[in-house]
């Protein structure tokens, strides 16, 4: 197990890859009382079709199966509820499913060793029965309805639907009530056996714990766990262009909403290091639309904007950026967004200031247990390693590359949606 440093952040970490491929990152923070553990698989709602090792043919599973499986991991053959196990020592536990991963977490201040061992064991012990699968359908139906009632959620879903033609993230992570009703225990075992394997999983631990003891527990529990052959997943061919450029929908809202997404093919940026490229992308978004942007100032003055939300997302070969906002004049706001991304150049002074902001942000994250879990998690997921020199990388970003990348962005490859209030009956 190698000890390494997060440079400029007064923080060390340990990285290890077991022989079976399971990756482990440990970031001890001696001055904290609390800890956070995540045990994750690179299996999320993006995978609904695959050929398992025994089956020759590819099979399509119901949408939302990864999320359903996540719920059902909490069912254990010995009847002990994992929530109860953790609660006994005041430890919190939960799980979440995303497009490209599912994670199981526990966090607390006590009983670290036993909790780590238990977390690994419960995720390693699926127990699905016809009865317990059936029982979950009502619960997940309420979860799907809960999100369906949130206008921002619906708008974001619609944006993905319009940006992508084929990628499964066009569909809600939870699937639909119709689809989840088709799920069987056999489906769940198939997914579990193929994707909950050491070479597809990783563990991240941050906070107050003993590195040696944690490492020993992980070896004892996982070193001998074997992999099955990774299933074949047919490559999904996604068009470079967005599926639908302009769209209008209605929602249960009073003030109209706007969603604007840019879809970029990463092949167009091949010459750049992926980590640096993401730093540049994030800089560009902040310079154009952040708190100190002239765009924001003008849009607010012209009464075009309220509650602006900006984000980026990795989607396989693609990167998407999206903006969402409430606006009294959605058409005008979209025009302004387009004008802004088509600017000739980015302000150099703002770029330098944004470096300062980004470095400060790295320092803050390094002081926060859950913040470091998130960072290491995304690093393993998207870069396949822990990035420990971000502060230096940010310092070394240069204006020429920034402008080159900005100029390469295909600004016409966007999807925009306006959500208008439903007419009253």
């Amino acid at each position, binding site marked *: 197990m190698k000890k390494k440093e997060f440079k400029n952040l007064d923080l060390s970490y340990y990285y290890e890859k077991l022989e079976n491929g399971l990756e482990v990152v440990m970031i001890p923070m001696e*001055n904290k*009382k*609390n800890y956070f553990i995540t045990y994750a698989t690179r299996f999320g709602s993006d995978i609904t079709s695959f050929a398992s090792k025994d089956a020759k043919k590819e099979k399509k599973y119901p949408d939302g199966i990864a999320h359903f499986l996540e719920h059902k991991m909490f069912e254990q053959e010995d009847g002990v*509820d994992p*929530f*109860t196990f953790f*609660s*006994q*020592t*005041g430890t*919190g536990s939960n799980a979440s499913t995303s497009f490209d991963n599912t994670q199981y977490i526990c966090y*607390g*201040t*006590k009983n670290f060793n036993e909790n780590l061992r238990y977390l690994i064991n419960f995720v390693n012990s699926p127990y699905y029965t016809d009865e317990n699968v059936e*029982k*979950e359908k*009502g*619960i*997940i*139906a*309420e*979860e799907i*309805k*809960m999100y*369906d*009632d*949130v*206008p*921002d959620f619906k708008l974001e879903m619609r944006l993905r639907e319009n940006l992508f033609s084929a990628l499964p993230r066009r569909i809600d992570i939870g699937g*639909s*009530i*119709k689809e989840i*009703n088709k799920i069987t225990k056999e489906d769940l075992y198939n997914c579990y056996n193929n994707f909950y394997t050491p070479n597809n999983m990783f563990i991240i631990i941050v906070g107050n714990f003993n590195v040696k003891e944690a490492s020993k527990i992980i070896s004892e529990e996982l070193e001998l766990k074997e992999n099955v052959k990774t299933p074949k997943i047919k490559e999904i061919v996604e068009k470079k262009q967005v599926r639908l450029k302009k769209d209008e929908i209605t929602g*249960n*809202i*009073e*003030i109209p909403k706007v969603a604007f997404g840019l879809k970029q093919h990463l092949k167009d940026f091949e010459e750049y290091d992926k980590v640096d490229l993401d730093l540049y992308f994030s800089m560009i978004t902040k310079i154009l639309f952040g*708190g*100190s*942007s*002239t765009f*924001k*100032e003008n849009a607010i*003055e012209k*009464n075009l904007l*309220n*509650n602006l939300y900006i984000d980026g997302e990795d989607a396989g070969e693609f990167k998407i950026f999206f903006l969402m906002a*409430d606006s*009294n004049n959605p058409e005008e706001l979209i025009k302004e967004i387009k004008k802004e991304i088509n600017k000739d150049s980015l302000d150099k002074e703002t770029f330098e*200031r944004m470096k*300062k*902001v980004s*470095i*400060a942000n790295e*320092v*803050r994250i*390094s*002081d926060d*247990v859950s913040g470091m879990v998130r960072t290491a998690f995304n690093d393993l997921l998207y870069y396949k390693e822990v990035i420990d020199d971000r502060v230096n990388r940010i310092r070394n970003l240069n204006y020429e590359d920034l402008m080159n990348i900005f100029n390469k962005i295909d600004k016409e490859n966007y999807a925009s949606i306006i959500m208008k209030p*439903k007419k009253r009956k």
Partner: protein
Amino acid sequence: MEYTKKDLGSYNIHLIKTNKFKTVTVKVIFRRKIKKEEITIRNLLTSLMVFSTKNYDSKRKLTIKAQDLYSVGIGSNNGRVGNYINTTFTLSSLNDKYTEKNNLNNAIDFLCEILFNPDIENDAFKESNVEIAKTKARSNLLSIKEDSSGYSLIRCLEEYDNKSPISYRMSGYLEDLESITGKDLYSYYKEMINKDLVDIFVLGDINEAEVLQKIKSHFKLRILKKEKPIYQLTEKKTRSKKLFVKESFNAKQTKVNIVCTCNGLNYHERTYVLPLYSVILGGGTDSKLFKEVREKHSLCYSIFAYPNRLDNVLIVQTGIDKENFKKTHELIEKNISDMKKGKIKEKEIEIAKQYFETSFDEAEEDPNSIIDIYASIEFLKSDDLETRRQKTNSVTKNELVKVAKKIKIDTIFSLEGEQNEKEGI
């Protein structure tokens, strides 16, 4: 951690010295008795104060200044605490070690600029800025139904007791908004600065003498305050017959809120027994309601119970299909009534105690929570953390049953989803 308090007559300074964090956190809290008609103007005022100042006369300039100070975080918030409204201005700055010499000093100057040098002309906040703040407030007020859980709680509390501060909408009122002028805002500003109770908390690796001197030089408040606030709301008599209210709503899910009175509790019961009671009933994934309503009967995805000790109430919230209202309501009533009959297992009590023990531990890991602890000692005369640990641990089953008997269901509110999702079932 070393704590010092200085009572300067017109305000208090609380210094909490610790080297645990990479940041220094400052909170300035203004308090006064809450009045319904002041909520909207106070919200507008605080948003204007962090919008611009005399020296940074636009949101953009203010943001640029904050970014230059290594992304110093500035925020404002209005919250009701029983009979009082607390307005908090928060500053979070990196330690000079991660920035440059004097950065913290400059950050505190910046906070004082926001507090004491508002962007006014002719004794009024600038009308153009007031319009911007009003537009944002209007948009948020009009969008209040987008969060159906939040909206259903607001409506429920209005039905419960529309005279009491418990029913006040902290987002403000549209009918109060329109007539507010820049002049009104400035005179309210002077009122708040001069007459409110003021407490300043500074937490981090600080030089106490320097910080004290700095604050004294900026805070030139002169009015001596002798007010002895009473935070606890007057108890409302429980209705002799439960009030059922149903309101139709354009949504898929039905939100159910139940308000119970908890009258006649003494300090110990309210502070230590009631929180344990509510964790056992509906505190999380291990509670009675979670197990019964979600896990056993698959009726909901989330269900919570939480107390509001200053308001003398306990609230239960869940989201269900409207067809299941009767069944869900019966189950909640049954669990509340079972606890009165003493159906509380020692194990459940132990788990609830462990939950609080971890919360107390975790509170010490977050600068904001530490300040909240000292603020609650100052404002509510709460016990210190150690006493809270001991007293929580000492609670007995008898005490819990005694409190359970005083929990009485008063109002049951259902925000009924009109859209029926029978798809695929």
